[in-house]
């Protein structure tokens, strides 16, 4: 039996694995569920299953619809299947990853259910039965709290890498359901490719050294690459450095780049503009180096060093 009034996470594949945001949402959902059943809902094919991975992150239930039709399924097909499951089982809350795919599916489901959907949240919590979704607007310059008081389910998409995923013990009940949606002859996938750069990118990195305009020198960057190698860290940048040929938008941290939440981020020569900050504010340990002790990044940091980034990088190289 699928539990009614539950909190559902719509699981997503990224290439051949379950998308990290799905696991992040499971961890966060468990933390705020307050007795409510947490369920993952997954559309999969016989050739590619995901319940094993999902089970490691502690949902109470995993609702699985398996069918060949979900191979390269269109947004419409997936949304129709999800809507049918939702209508039959009446969850209270549904969360999607705010990935391009999640942001394409969720509004289709929303429209079929005629309910509210808050986009791209950075936080969410319950006030009794009401989901309060906190989302940025106006290019992350403003935060707003959005609620859906009168209709259910209440829905939100949540920005990837805003929360950390943690494995959890406990056996998930697996509920297998029949697939009912048909393949979509009006939207036929001709080709799909996984972008290598994106999957080896920053978003999953546990340690990051980030470079800003104050570290925009070839010698410093070379030194940082060596230090990063020794520490097992990835190198990220603020937006100005994406103008360099050796960095691309995929390495950019921030609102118009990637959001990261590593265990460690070391910021070198970054001022800490709000658009940068939203991309890294959930990092566990933040250490920043800036020659201006009043740069905004400093109060966003656990440890700070005021001085020339080049000098600190050189000293680190000597020690490692």
């Amino acid at each position, binding site marked *: 039996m699928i539990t009614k009034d539950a909190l559902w996470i719509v699981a997503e594949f*990224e290439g051949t694995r379950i998308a990290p945001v799905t696991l992040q949402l499971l961890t966060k959902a468990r933390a705020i569920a307050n007795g409510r059943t947490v369920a993952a809902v997954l559309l999969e094919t016989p050739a590619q299953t995901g319940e094993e991975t999902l089970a490691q992150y502690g949902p109470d239930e995993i609702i699985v619809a398996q069918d060949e039709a979900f191979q390269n399924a269109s*947004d*419409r097909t997936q*949304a129709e299947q999800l809507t049918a499951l939702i209508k039959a089982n009446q969850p209270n809350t549904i969360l999607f990853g705010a990935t*391009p795919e999640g942001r*394409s599916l*969720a*509004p*289709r489901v*929303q*429209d079929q259910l*005629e*309910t*509210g*959907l*808050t*986009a*791209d949240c950075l936080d969410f919590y319950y006030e009794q039965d009401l989901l309060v979704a906190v989302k*940025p*607007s*106006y*290019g*992350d*310059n*403003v*935060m*707003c*709290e*959005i*609620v*859906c008081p009168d209709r259910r389910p209440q829905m939100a998409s949540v920005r990837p890498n805003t929360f950390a995923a943690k494995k959890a013990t406990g056996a998930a009940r697996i509920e297998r359901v029949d697939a009912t949606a048909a393949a979509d002859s*009006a*939207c036929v*996938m*001709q080709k*799909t*490719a*996984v*972008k290598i750069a*994106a999957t080896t990118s920053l978003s999953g990195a546990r*340690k990051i050294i980030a470079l800003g305009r104050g570290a925009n020198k070839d010698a410093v960057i070379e030194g940082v690459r060596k230090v990063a190698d020794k*520490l097992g860290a990835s190198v990220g940048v603020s937006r100005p450095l994406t103008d360099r040929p050796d960095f691309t938008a995929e390495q950019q941290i921030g609102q118009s780049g990637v959001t990261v939440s590593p265990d*460690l981020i070391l910021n070198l020569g970054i001022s800490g503009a*709000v658009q940068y*900050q*939203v991309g890294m*504010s959930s990092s566990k340990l933040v*250490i920043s180096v800036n020659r201006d002790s009043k740069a*905004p990044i*400093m*109060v*966003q*940091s*656990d*440890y700070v*060093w005021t*001085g020339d980034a080049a000098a600190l990088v050189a*000293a*680190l190289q000597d*020690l490692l």
Partner: protein
Amino acid sequence: MKIVVCIKQVPGSNRVSFDPITHNLVREGMAGRMNPFDENAIEAAVRLREQVGGEVVLLSMGPDATKETLHDGMAMGADSAYLLSSRAFAGSDTLATGYILAQAIRKIGAIDLILFGRQAVDADTGQVGPIVATELDLPQATFAEKIQPLDAQHVVVNRDLGAVTQTVQLTLPAVITVRAEANQPRYESPVAIQQSLTKPLTTWTDQDLTLDASRIGQAGSPTIVRKVYAPEPTTRAAKPLPQDPKEAAKALLDILQAQGLL
């Protein structure tokens, strides 16, 4: 090919501040402008018309001042425009907006393709395109970076979904949302601006459309923005490391060691 491009007028600037007394949002640069992604959608539509013929129709819901943005769009090459303007539309969230636009598209009729920007830069949801597609039960390709006409019934779209790219073939009519990478919008020439002033711009109110009153404006909007505020900069301890760079580097590595990060 008859193409509708939905465009939204957004605030002239995303720089916002808060009135210290009322805590209300104060937008700088109040004059509106076209949502930048919608310029890419218009450009994509005009290029399709240049390739296969047809017409490009603009559609926007908003206050009367939105006419200026519609004229800009016609100066970029669109042939005609519709403005949906009524007090009854005020307070519409994405669900109500999508419903109203869909009803207008039904009334315009005989549409092959409906284009949207990937998202509006003020509210940043990107939900309106897929909602309209669902209202009209049409297939969609979001986050398009390339659109190629195939024949009278089909287009081929390259989608960039971040981790993956897809090439999909859509049967028309269909909905596409357009990324900035799709094209470089053209400049409006003085001649084009002149011509845009004589192109037809029709205003429809709620009375001109077939609408279920419970689906428009505030009544038709399940979401409520209950609070708007400046993001709290997270403040942390900002403990200084020793002044000397060598000692600072050593202290830094000690911290990493202590936290199991080495």
